[in-house]
């Protein structure tokens, strides 16, 4: 892979860092705050997308500066997988910023909110572009630090409890990653993520098992891999844009990204196949998919249901990666995008419903479809994606995951896909039915439901994301779509020179 030194990765991280600083300093002016927030997201978007043509052509962009520790450089390396993650995050960041500007209007401590919001995008892109595990870890921990003020935004007791739980889990996860990194560095002398595996069997089974457990568990906290998931439902008390972005896109995806890096770049496919650890991971992921879906069924709050659905969907990615076949790997990577767009649509809808009608519970949804038709249509699109209906994004994932499972000789996971699809249907369809086909419950006060007034700045992002869900589903194989980027990443990981079968 030809490696080019390019300053764009550094700029991508720095740009939003500086814009975040600007947001902090323009204190009271809402207009400037909006400007700098959008500038942060926009510049990031432009820089990241500008690297796409190069990455599709097989180029890898690197930029290094100095050593943080003896023998471990601090630097960026943009390969296909990293660019994919960065693309998804930077695209979604723009729409989320627009949405957040509308949703948070009138709230308190806005400079702090938007400042840290912009800092989070910096750290997420830093994770995506990290050249080695240490750089990734730096930005990973900084992401935890920068998301904390966002979760604590409401500053009430529920926020503090959620924040404390969040920190306990994510920082402990960070500690596990750190321990894994130390053992990794001790046994191999490197932390590079540029290879298809830096570990070898010769190191010894006990060390290899320790590294695997530490890294997977450490990253698994943010990836909400049960039983390390408990922070995610608790963090739903945060404002909706925070839930949408962080828990659909940035924080949780950073966790699965870390797991992907561990599987593909630290261990490598061949070593893991020999060791057999990934099989256990697949079993765990499969179990999580089902259990989390069942839990989602039991939730009465909209956001809680979305949270459990997220936990289930994240394990799709983990399962796909753990199957260790090219087609499954493809499913893992594209599900980063598919799940992100679909879930963020749903979170945006939940927030819009809350702002427009004040409703937060599933059983209150009667008639909302008539009050907010476009919004609920988008919700329907997203839920069809999760159910795996063809032409929507989620179907692509399930298709490739099933093929990959068959390729690995583990047909049982196809069954897991089917069960999961049915479960998804069982908790999304009632919501849609209630919204569209039931008259709103009147509590005696207003007899006629008026259309809820929600700012267009909130509705447009919803529609954009929903449209993208359809686009990802129907037009997946078109060139220049992220799909080809995912293919490039898989080709690298599996060292294939030919198109996937």
């Amino acid at each position, binding site marked *: 892979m030809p490696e080019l030194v390019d300053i764009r990765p550094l700029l991508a991280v720095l740009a939003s860092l500086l814009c975040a600083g600007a947001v902090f300093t323009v204190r009271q002016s809402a207009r400037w705050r909006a400007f700098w927030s959008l500038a942060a997201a926009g510049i990031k978007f432009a820089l990241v997308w500008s690297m796409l043509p190069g990455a599709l052509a097989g180029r890898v962009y690197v930029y290094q500066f100095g050593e*943080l*520790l003896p023998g471990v450089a601090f630097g960026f390396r943009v390969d296909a997988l990293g660019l994919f993650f960065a693309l998804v995050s930077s695209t979604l960041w723009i729409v989320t910023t627009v949405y957040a500007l509308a949703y948070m209007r009138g709230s308190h401590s806005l400079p702090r909110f938007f400042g840290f919001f912009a800092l989070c995008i910096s750290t997420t892109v830093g994770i995506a572009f990290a050249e080695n595990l240490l750089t990734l870890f730096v930005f990973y921990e900084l992401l935890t630090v920068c998301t904390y003020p966002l979760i604590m935004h409401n500053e009430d007791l529920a*926020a503090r409890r959620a924040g404390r739980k969040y920190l306990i889990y994510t920082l402990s996860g960070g500690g596990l990653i*750190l321990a894994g990194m130390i053992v990794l560095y*001790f046994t191999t002398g490197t932390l590079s993520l540029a290879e298809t595996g830096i570990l070898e069997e010769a190191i010894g089974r006990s060390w290899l098992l320790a590294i695997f457990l530490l890294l997977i568990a450490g990253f698994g906290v943010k990836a909400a891999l049960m039983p390390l998931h408990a922070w995610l439902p608790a963090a739903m008390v945060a404002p909706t844009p925070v839930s949408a972005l962080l828990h659909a896109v940035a924080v949780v995806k950073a966790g699965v990204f870390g797991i992907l890096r561990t599987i593909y770049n630290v261990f490598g496919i061949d070593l893991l196949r020999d060791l057999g650890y990934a099989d256990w991971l697949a079993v765990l992921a499969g179990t999580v998919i089902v259990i989390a879906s069942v839990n989602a069924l039991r939730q009465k709050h909209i956001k809680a249901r979305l949270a459990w659905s997220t936990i289930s969907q994240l394990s799709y990615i983990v399962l796909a990666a753990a199957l260790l076949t090219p087609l499954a790997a493809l499913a893992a990577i594209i599900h980063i995008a598919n799940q992100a767009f679909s879930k963020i649509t749903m979170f945006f809808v939940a927030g819009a419903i809350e702002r427009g009608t004040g409703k937060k519970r599933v059983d209150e949804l009667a008639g909302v479809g008539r009050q907010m038709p476009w919004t609920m249509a988008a919700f329907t699109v997203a839920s069809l994606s999760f159910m795996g209906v063809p032409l929507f994004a989620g179907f692509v994932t399930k298709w490739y995951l099933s093929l990959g499972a068959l390729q690995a000789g583990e047909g049982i996971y196809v069954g897991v896909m089917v069960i999961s699809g049915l479960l998804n249907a069982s908790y999304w369809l009632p919501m849609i039915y209630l919204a569209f086909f039931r008259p709103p419950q009147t509590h005696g006060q207003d007899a006629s439901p008026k259309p809820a007034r929600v700012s267009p700045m909130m509705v447009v992002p919803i529609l954009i994301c929903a449209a993208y869900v359809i686009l990802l589903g129907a037009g997946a194989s078109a060139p220049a779509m992220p799909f080809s980027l995912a293919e490039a990443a898989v080709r690298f990981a599996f060292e294939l020179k030919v198109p996937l079968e």
Partner: protein
Amino acid sequence: MSEWPHWLPLLAVLPLLGGVLTPLLFRRRPVIPCFWAVAVALVTAAVAVMLLLRLIDSGDFSYAVGGWLPQYGIELRFDQIGAFALPASLLVMLALVFSRHYVARTVDPEKISYYYALVLINLGGLNGFLVTGDLFNLFVFMEIFSVSAYALVAMARQPIAALAALKYLLLGALSSLLVLFSVGVVFAMTGTLNIEDAAVLLEGSSSMPAGLALAGLATGFAVKAALFPVHFWLPDAHAAAPAPVSAILSALVVKAGVVGLLRTLELFGGGESLYLQPLLSLMLWLGALGTLGGALMALVQRDIKLMLAYSTIANIGYIFIGLGLATTSAVGGAMVHAVNHAVMKSALFLAAGAMIHQTGLRNIDDLRGLGRRMPATAFGMAFTLVALSGVPPMAGFVGKWQIALGALEAGQPLPVAVLVLAGLVVLAFGVRMINALYFRPPARVSTVSSVEAPVSMWLPVLILAVASLALGLAGSSMLEFVAPAVQAIYGTPP
């Protein structure tokens, strides 16, 4: 320049002289002694820079006081450990700048010039301790900085300060006497007081007096360094002292104990001495206990200065784990952590002092809501707390990583778990403080109406906070810098 060695004694003489002159020149004046003291510290720092540059250029050098050669006279040596004089002088200078407004409220106005005198004398003693190559000289400088430290703790007006100072004095004097006793034993055994000479003469000896001397020196310096379980003088002393004094104590005076132990290891090094290995293991395990104990105790404190004092004990524990592991990475990491911790802990104590000065309250719950009212100070404290807990790329990370790596190199996985666990506990109390500052409404009237501290108080805090990021980024170079010293003290690394 070939005269640089002649500047070596200045490191100690300048502050000592400056300190002694202060009450003579500025009796009863409250502000001028501050400028004078800052100037003296600045000049000392400049001398330290020159010497450091010479060190980097051409390696260790020594200076024979009065021209008497080492066998007969006192030798001063400037090696990597001596380079600690630079951060020491700079930290003292920043603490002095901070003191300008702070002491007005905490110290009797008549005694302010004595305060500055004592701080300068303390610096002089510290610098002398770092650069001396003679055992008795070591003792004398140790007493200089210790006695001035006892007196400084007592300068705070609260009655508890006198008791804390007396406790510190009694235990400190006990440890000093242990050191003196051991110096006497070494002199009896070898006939020389020069550290390098004595090391050669003591090489491989495992007689009872040698063991006695080693035990005495190790225990004496361990008390000064607040190693578990002889750490119990530290919380009261550091919490009761005026904030800039707490900063100097936690950052520098305690590290002098560590330096003393390093010199002891150098004295008895050569790897053959029977007693050395048990000592190293003891340091490792006591360090681990101190780390966990200190961190947990810090977590349950309500008074902010007590919390910081227990955090010092935890960090000293890290350093001892590193020293006890005796591999190049571990010891290098411990030394780098000593410097980094000095910078971070000073920032924290100064920030805490600023908050106490402005609100009159010391309880963490009472300090809620200061994030908005004292933005610079609160930011400095929050930033440094994140650094202290070891979030990369800040200063707290490098030392811990290296020590953990050294643990694996030495075949001891347990310290890695201790370090990771303790790091999480440190994060916990750091987050508690950050929560109180930023995410809680004020709980007391005095916090609602408080304003930002004067510039001379928040500026040093911010400078030190930024330094804790800069030092973190420079971790690699710092490790390279101390490597020769590790070689020299521990012999060939395993």
